[in-house]
């Protein structure tokens, strides 16, 4: 790593930090307007509870792998030059596939995860098909398909599966859980997500295909004219990003995140993944860090009570996303003179 490369990374870190701080400050300001009495304690809960309290920590450790995976999903599509908004839909597909496998076929956890990955890949393949057949923007088709998938699975779930869910036990399909001392429990999802992030980093940095992907995402025409298989890589990466989102859905379901409707969780994780990828500039190691911070925030948000809404954590994420996107766009517009 050269000195200038380090400088660029440091600049990116500073920028992400600035965006994040501004978002938090904005939400603080809003809270002060809504309910000045509870504002300070709420902000404390929001920022710290996910890391300090025992319950909060468990929840953070549960959400962290999900955000890593959806962040990776958005990030790897980004590296190929796509703005990937399909994560919520693919997340749902993955969760649904894992659930069907567990409940109907009574499969072990690894087979359920495989099904989840396949479900997500299906979503990615559909997106890639639409994109490459009709040149329509992948943003539009992804958002529309998100709704289709969310509604469809909800309908299927209510009509066919909810009865089975009540009777069948999910124990056989649940992910193995490790205990970290007596502090918190961690499911296998966390090491899986960490390994995938590390793998993505290594592939992007050290392999031929990673180089081709980065080139194609940075400048499609230049990569094409340098003889790289640009189209093949783009299709591959869209499917791969589906796999990551689907895995996130599977991990979410199999690690027993219950209490919130699947449609809510998938939208939350899918779009938070977008913010994670934007904050970290799609760098896999950055995704690990950004996902941790975001997971703490979201789990802190869920413990909020009283007049302060639980969606406050998501609000910070949304503002972060907006801020990163604005800065990114501004940087692109920069005139070279």
């Amino acid at each position, binding site marked *: 790593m*050269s*000195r*200038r*490369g380090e400088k*660029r990374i440091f600049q990116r870190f500073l920028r992400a930090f600035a965006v994040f701080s501004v978002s938090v400050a904005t939400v603080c300001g809003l809270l002060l307007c809504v309910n000045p009495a509870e504002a300070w304690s709420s902000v404390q809960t929001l920022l710290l509870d996910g890391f300090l309290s025992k319950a909060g920590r468990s929840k953070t450790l549960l959400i962290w792998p999900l955000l890593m995976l959806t962040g990776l999903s958005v990030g790897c599509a980004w590296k190929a030059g796509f703005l990937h908004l399909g994560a919520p839909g693919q997340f749902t597909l993955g969760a649904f596939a894992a659930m069907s496998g567990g409940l109907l076929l009574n499969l072990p956890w690894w087979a359920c995860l495989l099904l989840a990955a396949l479900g997500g890949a299906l979503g990615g393949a559909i997106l890639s098909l639409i994109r490459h057949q009709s040149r329509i923007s992948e943003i539009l088709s992804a958002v529309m398909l998100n709704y289709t998938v969310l509604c469809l699975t909800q309908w299927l779930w209510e009509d066919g599966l909810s009865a089975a869910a009540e009777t069948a036990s999910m124990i056989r399909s649940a992910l193995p859980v490790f205990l970290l001392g007596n502090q918190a429990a961690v499911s296998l999802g966390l090491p899986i997500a960490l390994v995938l992030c590390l793998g993505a980093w290594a592939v992007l940095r*050290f*392999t*031929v*295909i990673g*180089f081709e992907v*980065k*080139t194609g995402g*940075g*400048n499609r*025409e*230049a*990569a*094409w*004219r*340098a*003889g*790289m*298989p640009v189209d093949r890589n783009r299709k591959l990466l869209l499917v791969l990003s589906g796999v990551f989102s689907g895995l996130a859905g599977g991990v979410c379901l199999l690690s027993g995140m219950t209490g919130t409707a699947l449609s809510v969780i998938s939208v939350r994780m899918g779009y938070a993944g977008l913010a994670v990828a934007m904050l970290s500039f799609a760098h896999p190691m950055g995704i690990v860090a950004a996902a941790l911070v975001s997971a703490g925030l979201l789990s802190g948000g869920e413990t909020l009570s009283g007049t302060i809404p639980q969606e406050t954590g998501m609000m910070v994420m949304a503002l972060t996303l907006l801020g990163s996107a604005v800065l990114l766009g501004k940087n692109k517009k920069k*005139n*070279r*003179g």
Partner: protein
Amino acid sequence: MLHISKQIGDAAGIADFSLRLNKGAFHGVLGAHCTGKTTLARILNGMCIPDSGSILIEGDEADLRSPRSAAAWGIGFAGEESPYVHGLDLIGHLMLGSEFAPSGKLGKRAARTQAAEFIEQYGIPLDLDSRADEMNRAEWLWAEVLRMVMQKRDILVLDEPDVVFTRQEMDTLVSVLRKICGAGSAVLLFSRRPETVLSACEEATLLCPGRPAETYRTSEATAEDFLCLMRGENAPQAPEKKEITVGGIVLETRRLTVRDQDSADDPAHDVSFEVRSGEILCLLGRPDSGWDALGAALIGAKEMVSGRIKLDGKDISRASVRDRLRAGMAYLPRNIRELGAIDYFTLEENLSLQGYMHYQESGWIKRRQRRDEAAHILDASGVSGRADLDSYADELADESLWLAMFSRELERRPALLIVEEPTRHTSERTAPFIREQLLSVRANHRAVLLLTSQPEEAMGLSDRILVLHEGEIMGEFDPANTSARELGWYMSGQWRQQRYGGAAIEGEDE
């Protein structure tokens, strides 16, 4: 009386530039690439805001924040790019900027009458019945000039019209502009060719990097003087072109037709030629004549509808880009930043865009070898002083980036090098280096296909010149027995008009 003076910070490459333009004056600004010509023109049109300094028009400080405010101050601008608005006809384009009549009506008929009057009065060669989506760059430039006249702009800024116009058209333009000056407007002409400025303007300001701009009377200077000043002292001499025995055919194209998704016309139609080893073949044409599409089709980046391409006797018409590169082609597009490099990659990565396949082991890149190769390429490129392997492409100036990428292609030792406008991005100081490199490719019995819009460049470098106009080859010329004027005649398609349409055309004085 108009005073224009401005100081601009170092960022745009213009420092402390001042100019004084009188009413009715015809003033030229001369400078090589990267000396800030275009930036200055953009400032005057309000498209770019100076860091410091001020512009005075008739004693008042003009506030030029957008093209609209520039228009309000009476400044008009015509650049190299065509301002085509989809779905608007020519008269509509001529009314852009003055579309708000007091009555609120879009007086199209009045505008047409007025346009026809001005065409008559100044002798502007523009057909008002042309379809806007079929007009070429030269016709657009005429339309822009007419628009400025119709809107009674006091100061006309023209940015490098000689890139678009041929010699004959420049002569016509100069006579039109003289008449406009006679009517009281001032003209500011930006160019990189001393001949243009000398033949057209009364006064010329020379932009040189690292020196204050100076104004000369054109009657007291020659093109040679200006060239010397632009190159700086101790400039390397133009390389000598040696006699080389021409070898076998390297590239052969037969009836090549290229299609563009965005336009109705084929950018290149039924083109056949061959390039032999040890020769530099030049395809000369205006920027919109289709040579860029031809180059892209040869490398496989653009779809071709029909025809055949043979490289070293092998048919590669259906081969992928990678196979063509492997077979020994190399390609340097004109806008290297958009088509040949990645902005946020380091130079090391950018230099290995094609080479990475050679230093891999079962899919893993051998990074040490990549770095060594990149260092080697960078050494050969002559930009080592200005950039190192860890510089990001968006930190580099166009010239350095171009030179580095040029070296990247040369180091691959291609059998055929396709290069677009090699000296477009370079200053007068480095242009000889590039010419020398191209000639050494030729001396090593390899082939070069030069795609350019500059007749001088074509004549100086190539062994044969094919002139391209609207995607078709007009004829073959021997650079030793032709002139820029003759080539321009064919480039503009006037030759064809005269032959088939019988239209009377002026300017045939050679």
